[in-house]
């Protein structure tokens, strides 16, 4: 993965495949610690304890189309390259939380990438799933919920390309800079 936005797209894909109906994506900057934390929490089918212990193994996947699963291992690699870590917590039937910690001033921290584009793609590409994006930096915060967008849109479909482009302009990632 070349950037953070692609990791988000990727890990959210796992949540969607787990049948989640609510996916919370959080990005938090801890200024003094120079840390960026990415949290993706879903209410999908969850995983057993044994699976949680093995998910960051590249040769473990729940898919049948192929024998490798590289999404989480890649995220783990990119977090660890900066001195950070990845934590996965899950409970069967309840959902999963993936937490990645990056020291984002580290030279090996991947670029943020097209976060706006990825978020718009995630929200408008999955009309049946609700997403909450929240950014936090100290006391500053930004939050956007796809449920609110859908409510405003009424009978206009959220997966229309023009809506997708508009959602992109509703994103504000300036808190991360």
């Amino acid at each position, binding site marked *: *993965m070349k950037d953070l936005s*692609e990791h988000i797209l990727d890990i959210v*894909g796992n949540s969607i495949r787990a049948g989640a109906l609510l996916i919370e994506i959080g990005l938090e900057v801890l200024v003094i610690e120079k840390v960026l934390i990415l949290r993706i929490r879903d209410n999908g089918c969850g995983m057993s304890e044994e699976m949680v212990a093995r998910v960051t193994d590249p040769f473990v996947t729940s898919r049948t189309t*192929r024998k490798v699963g*590289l999404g989480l291992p890649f995220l783990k690699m990119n977090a660890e390259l900066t001195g950070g870590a990845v934590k996965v917590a899950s409970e069967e039937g309840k959902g999963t939380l993936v937490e990645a910690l990056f020291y984002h001033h580290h030279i090996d921290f991947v670029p943020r990438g097209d976060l706006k584009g990825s978020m718009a793609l995630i929200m408008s590409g999955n009309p049946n799933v609700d997403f909450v994006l929240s950014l936090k930096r100290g006391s500053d915060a930004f939050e956007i919920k796809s449920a609110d967008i859908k409510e405003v849109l009424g009978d*206009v479909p959220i997966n*229309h390309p023009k809506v997708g482009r508009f959602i992109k302009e509703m994103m504000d990632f300036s808190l991360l800079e």
Partner: protein
Amino acid sequence: MAKVKTLDDLRRMKDQLKSKISLRENGENPESMVQVKISMSTCGIASGAKEIMNFFMDEFDSQGLDAVVTQTGCMGYCYAEPTIEVTKPGEKPLVFGDVTTDKAMEIIEKYIKEGELVDGIIPDSYETIE
């Protein structure tokens, strides 16, 4: 820097948006349109599937073509990412591999518009995976 849009802006934009898209949405049923599915798993994303998806959406929009672009999971052709599946109305779906923006343009101009087959179809006897 462009101002960030809010929900209020969206509310204001909604009617305008509605009149623009109603024409297309009225006759909407996916079978009557060209469907393009972009494989967007780890393998696809890492190979640049997002860029291809944006390209298709922009191109269909600017050319006014009746087509839907959606995401799908890994089709098992990780060696040939980015892969896309194109379904024309009434025809069998076709999978194209190693799609670049140039290839995407060729697929639009030759296959989608003219029905002419282009290189890059995988495999020969393809059946759509549900």
